[in-house]
């Protein structure tokens, strides 16, 4: 079976599954899953760039997704004028002190000869600089957090439409990725994996504790939206007219008295589906743009160079390719894509909750998507994103149903039965691991393996 046919078939199956969910459960559920499938596909594309193109093992996906979420807050929230007023001088001085510390320590590192003197000087500069920074920073933070701590207590954001945060999230993630890449990319695969795992935990620790930035664990709720609100739609004339026209067949058969109530229900259902469809359109647009760019990049000379580096670093280096620079480049690009996806996710949720970022869901699940879909193949990653998210979500009701069915012969109040049904949702982790291991063992290339073009074909 050719790869193109396989791709079409695989996506047809996904579409069919979504339609079945729409018919059996509801279209609302189906569209909700589709939206998250799209976001997962973007994240998987980002990981695929790093792992599939360049062979970089980034186990810090969660951190970059969280950075994207943070930028959604920083872009969309209105600035808190009082907090800025109370703290901007100190904040500025603290930022300058911090920057100066880094600059001076870099100069020390470069100019002084290696040895005990340099280590001593570096330690002095860093400790002194950080102490000075905190001297200005701590009172500023106290000042910010004391302003209406129950409602705001942070600096707020830029007050721009939230859709700008998708680009901004990518930029923030790229910037942090540059810092990390500079330090960690010289390491071999195993160390890089552990290092990125650690960095994602640190990013989360910062987001949870720096209340002045994103309110920490107090969460930011009620983010603005790029699409209309359901409640507004329900009172908009054109929308009600549209729903009346759409459901005219169903409304006609009802008598006069029943019509308004039925119409109202249709409008409520319709508005939530309409909002989800708007999101679907936006996310699909982003996915298509990123996908097209990645396909173009992978087939370009640049993509060939990346694969050459992945397959044999030494040979590529001997051919004059700057392996370290290329690694840094692809690490930044991939992380930026993950950041974009993270911002889209927070936009969809409408709130930023740092505690909801967990490595199993945000790092390792994305990895399952890439491996199962097919590493090195862009369409494969998109497919993996769709498929794995579908299974991840639907495994819960199916698992509970299976458990209820399988233990049907036990009494309703049987402790074992209750335990099994209550905990059935956790079996999806087991199932994901099983899928990953089976694919890795029997079809290491994934569902849609990488296409290797030989010369002349």
């Amino acid at each position: 079976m050719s790869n193109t046919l396989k791709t079409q078939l695989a996506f047809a199956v996904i579409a069919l599954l979504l339609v079945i969910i729409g018919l059996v459960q509801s279209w609302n559920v189906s569209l909700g899953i589709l939206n998250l499938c799209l976001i997962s596909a973007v994240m998987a594309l980002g990981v695929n760039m790093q792992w599939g193109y360049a062979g970089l093992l980034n186990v810090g996906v969660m951190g970059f997704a969280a950075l994207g979420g943070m930028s959604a807050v920083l872009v969309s929230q209105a600035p808190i004028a009082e907090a800025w007023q109370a703290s901007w001088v100190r904040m500025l001085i603290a930022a300058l002190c911090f920057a100066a510390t880094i600059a001076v320590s870099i100069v020390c590192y470069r100019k002084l000869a290696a040895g005990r003197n340099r280590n001593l000087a570096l330690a002095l500069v860093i400790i002194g600089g950080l102490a000075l920074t905190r001297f200005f920073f701590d009172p500023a933070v106290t000042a910010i957090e004391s302003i209406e701590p129950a409602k705001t207590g942070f600096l707020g954001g830029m007050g721009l439409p939230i859709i700008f945060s998708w680009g901004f999230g990518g930029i923030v993630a790229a910037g942090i990725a540059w810092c990390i890449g500079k330090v960690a990319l010289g390491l071999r695969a195993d160390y890089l994996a552990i290092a990125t795992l650690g960095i994602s935990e640190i990013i989360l620790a910062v987001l949870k504790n720096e209340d002045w930035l994103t309110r920490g664990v107090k969460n930011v709720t009620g983010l603005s939206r790029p699409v209309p609100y359901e409640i507004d739609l329900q009172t908009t004339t054109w929308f009600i007219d549209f729903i009346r026209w759409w459901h005219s067949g169903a409304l006609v058969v009802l008598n006069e008295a029943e019509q308004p109530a039925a119409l109202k229900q249709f409008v409520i259902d319709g508005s939530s589906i309409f909002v989800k469809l708007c999101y679907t359109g936006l996310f699909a647009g982003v996915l298509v743009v990123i996908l097209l760019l990645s396909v173009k990049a992978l087939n370009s000379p640049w993509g060939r160079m990346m694969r050459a580096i992945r397959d044999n670093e030494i040979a590529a280096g001997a051919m004059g390719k700057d392996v370290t620079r290329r690694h840094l480049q692809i690490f930044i690009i991939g992380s930026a894509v993950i950041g974009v996806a993270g911002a889209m996710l927070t936009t969809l949720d409408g709130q930023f909750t740092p505690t909801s970022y967990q490595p199993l869901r945000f790092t390792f699940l994305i990895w399952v998507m890439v491996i199962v879909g097919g590493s090195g193949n862009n369409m494969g990653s998109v497919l993996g994103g769709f498929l794995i998210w579908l299974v991840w979500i639907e495994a819960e009701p199916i698992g509970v149903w299976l458990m209820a069915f399988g233990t049907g012969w036990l009494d309703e109040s049987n402790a074992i039965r209750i335990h099994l049904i209550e905990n059935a949702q956790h079996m999806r982790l087991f199932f994901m691991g099983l899928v990953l291991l089976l694919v890795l063992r029997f079809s290491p290339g994934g569902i849609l393996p990488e296409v290797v073009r030989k010369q002349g074909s």
Partner: protein
Amino acid sequence: MEAITDFVSAIVLLLNFIVVPGLSYGSQLALGALGITLVFGILRFANFAHGDTMAFGTMMTILVTWWLQSKGVNLGPLPTALLALPAGIAATILLLVVTDKTVYRYYRHSKAVPVTFMIASMGVMFMTNGIVRFVIGPNDQRFLDGERFIVSARNFKSMTGLSEGLSIKVSQGLTIVVAIILVALLFWFLQKTRTGKAMRAYSDNEDLALLSGVDPDRVVLVTWIITAILATIAGTLYGLDKSFKPFTYLQLLLPMFAAAIVGGIGNPIGAIVGGYVIAFSEVMVTYAYKKVFVYLLPQSLEPQGLLQLLSTDYKFAVSFVILVLVLLVRPTGILKGKVL
């Protein structure tokens, strides 16, 4: 006289909040890191499933502990979990041997690259995590019984007449004692027995060891058995000391990796050193020193702030920063381990 009392009080304060917790947490980390380092030395991959192996072993121990408690069996002042440990270890050995036979052996025989092993270990991590959550649920479980303190703060105060108390929990004392015994046994095994020597030879140079007639399957089997023993005991001790929650054990993976690498990965002594280095730096950096200085300095120089370098929530950051520093300055770790 007052100066001396103040000085002793400051020392007691440090003992109570830094030395005792650091020693017990460090021992737990060291036992965990030993498992990671052994798997790395023999099987040559970074085992992401290790945290969940610990969780699995602890879960089995907890289940047997509950069963024993329901039968009215206990160890008096010591926690019943000690009695349940052998059963937990047996179950964990079974789990690890089965995963090796079904997952890792294939890659070993096909000479796969370490990264493939690592991704496979992620799959194993998912599955083990799923089993643990399915059986015992995602919530906190406490299973400590028996005496709570060896020395309680109040007794210490009334004994010495100091204003600062020193408390040592049974679980902390137990951790340190068990860790010493276990490490001594491990080193005796690695240095003195035939199998131990075979393991070291295999880790040092696989081909040479094979030529000398070392049975690779046996070496791998023994490695997994030792890893299971270490992981179950480390997990149970951690659970007794703090509490058992599957998610916490997943998070322990990072400090354990850091400990193994900082000490020098593949080097058992390094894992122990690394465990204490990580534990003590976490505790020391996140401790608020104000009270210590209040005792030590004259009243006029009393510090204003808490004198806490970082808030406690940054403890993961500490282990990671040390990890990065060591990787940059001395990639082989404090004691020379293998370079990856």
